[in-house]
């Protein structure tokens, strides 16, 4: 393994790979990505891989719009032929309460003002988009036709191949065990395959980012919570959009090969990094989905699994250089939407690392906001 690097990126998930790709594209040489398992083994390969621009805060709308536009042109931008299976069947978001109806009206206005073509729908109109939805269970809905979902494995491959072809070295099965310091100066990283000296280190370790920050002795106010998913047997195409509900507590999509993939949140989920599955999830998820979509009750569940949401107090990410350790960068705390933000994560982090201005101002997503009482308005449009 190489002994030196200009930038060492910790984490071979979609965020780390996107940062590597963007840095390499901007001309930075000698970049390494260090992944303790195989690429995408963390939250990237375990997530729902939904892409949506329908958010409740301006910043999230802008970040996700950037990402969505990137994915629309991914093949050209990556210069490879890997099909990331971006299916833009839209996102249909159902309101379950009167408060949500009002919130959704405000969201659509905000989104439209930012150039996002979302619409506010009656339950009947939502039923036309998704005929197997029991519309008596929703009070209203919003829809954006450019939202959708993609294949996280293909996307990981597309990013990693693009990064490799630009000269990035990717080391899988290479675990970072320590951050090397010289006094209070950053020196590099220690892995189970040897040390790498690097003046710049990026913490993109997702669910494990707090462990990495601890190694560097810097504060990163995040925690990881288990989230579970299940998948059904495949059937003929019957649902174009990703359906989502916040108070309804569900996201569900039918992937191109016909399976339904769905997840929900649960405050009682453990926060100790375990990745086990529970039968309680299986039951609650089945109940939620068959209440809203009775026809799915005929499907068999074929598998369930879990991944980690890396959470912050305002459910928005941290894009920052650690104030205590110059050269050590955080791209963490994605709070369940790190996958869809990957393109913008790569862009803003690469610009920050190179000391250049990014297309979107993300200075408010600093790591100090949690101390200074500068929390951002909490994003309510999350499952």
């Amino acid at each position, binding site marked *: 393994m190489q002994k030196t690097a200009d930038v060492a990126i910790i984490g071979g998930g979609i965020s780390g790979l996107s940062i590597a790709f963007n840095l390499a594209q901007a001309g930075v040489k000698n970049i390494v990505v260090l992944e303790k398992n195989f690429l995408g083994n963390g939250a990237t390969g375990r997530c729902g891989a939904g892409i949506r621009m329908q958010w409740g805060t301006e910043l999230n709308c802008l970040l996700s719009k950037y990402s969505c536009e990137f994915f629309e042109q991914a093949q050209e931008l990556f210069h490879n032929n890997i099909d990331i299976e971006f299916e833009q069947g839209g996102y249909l978001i159902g309101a379950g309460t009167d408060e949500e109806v009002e919130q959704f009206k405000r969201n659509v206005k905000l989104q439209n003002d930012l150039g996002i073509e979302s619409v506010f729908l009656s339950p009947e109109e939502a039923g036309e988009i998704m005929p197997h939805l029991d519309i008596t269970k929703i009070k209203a809905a919003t829809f954006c036709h450019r939202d959708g979902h993609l294949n996280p494995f293909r996307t990981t491959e597309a990013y990693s191949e693009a990064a490799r072809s630009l000269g990035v070295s990717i080391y899988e099965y290479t675990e970072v065990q320590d951050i090397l310091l010289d006094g209070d100066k950053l020196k590099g990283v220690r892995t189970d395959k040897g040390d790498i000296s690097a003046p710049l280190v990026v913490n993109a370790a997702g669910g494990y980012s707090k462990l990495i920050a601890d190694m560097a002795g810097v504060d990163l106010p995040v925690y990881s919570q288990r989230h579970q998913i299940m998948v059904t047997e495949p059937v003929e195409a019957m649902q174009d959009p990703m359906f989502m509900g916040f108070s309804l507590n569900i996201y569900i999509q039918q992937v191109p090969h016909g399976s339904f993939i769905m997840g929900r949140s649960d405050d009682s989920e453990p926060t100790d990094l*375990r990745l*086990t*599955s*529970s*039968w309680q999830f*299986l039951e609650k998820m089945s109940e939620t989905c068959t209440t809203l979509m009775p026809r799915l009750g005929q499907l068999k569940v074929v598998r369930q699994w879990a991944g980690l949401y890396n959470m912050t107090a305002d459910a928005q990410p941290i894009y920052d250089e650690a104030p205590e350790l110059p050269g050590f960068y955080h791209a963490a705390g994605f709070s369940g939407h790190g996958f869809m933000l990957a393109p913008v994560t790569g862009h803003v982090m690469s610009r920050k690392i190179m000391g250049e201005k990014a297309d979107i101002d993300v200075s408010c997503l600093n790591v100090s906001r949690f101390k200074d009482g500068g929390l951002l308005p909490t994003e309510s449009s999350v499952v």
Partner: protein
Amino acid sequence: MISIPLLIVGAGPAGLCAAYRAAEVGVDVLILDRAQKPGGQLVKQTHKFFGSEKQFASTRGIEIADILFKRLEDLPGRVELLTDATVIGFYEDGVVTAEVQGKFMKYRPEACIVATGASEKTLAFTGNDLPGVYGAGAVQTLMNEYGVRPGNRVLMIGAGNIGLIVSYQLLQAGVQVAAILDAADEIGGYLVHASKIRRAGVPILTRHTVGLAYGDEKVEHAIIHALDDEWNKIPGSEQQLDVDVICVAVGLSPLADLLWQAAVDMKYIGALGGYVPLRNSDMMTSVAGLYIAGDVAGIEEASSAMVEGEIAGISAAGRLGFSSEESHLLKKDCLQQLRQLRAGPGSEKIRTGMALAGAYV
């Protein structure tokens, strides 16, 4: 949620013997099996067993299944067997989920014996997804269970005991066997089986493998070739065989998915067929109260599966507070039987593998 003292997963030789020993001393047992009837792979084994009387030597497998099942009646403990009952989940809180005759069920067992057996290994070659390519177990099921011949002319891949026995059964059913191939230098199965087949005129080609199967939407031809010392094809050694069935008998892997879910300590031991759970001489895994028996604990014969089942049954019963004066002696005798079954020169690999897995050897 149903609370039960002892759950046994799998009603094959190991599971049925475990149930017998546990119920004999008074444990109520629930056995779940995904098949339509009990017996596991015994129900397709029409040949007579070797070994000693205790493991039903000279009795056909299919008859052993009946004997093992019938003796579960009228024991001090009640044995309930549910077929068409697939265990699908082992959760960290000890709950076991199953699809039982179409219904989702949850069980909370105090102890559990996993006796799920094995699955067949497959072989990578061009055309191996064509209709006509079978695992040896599927061929046995078709012929011996359902009375259906898989085709007219078979190429058998693998000269271990399963490959040899299934070839002989094919011949008995009036199916031609074009050849038996094995990539190894020597025939892996018992020579008594191999000799019978050779006498019937079937060539056994060691250092050979199949490279290609082709035909119009189904297997019609196979190209086989010889292998050099580095396992590479020897150019010019290709032969075409006109066959409509390619039967793959290249060994078994422990069906250990449930044990992975239960997070028991596993170890890759090639001699035992792949990843196997570590165990102690009671057949208990690293998870307290979770026992194993049979092929899931390492690929062997039905005879040793039955004895392992007995040990697991006695041990699980003991853990639940049920034993008799003879339990201790019985377990000792079982361990002795296992040692005898694994004593031959041909069992050296098994002995080494079992020692690595923590078993009594």
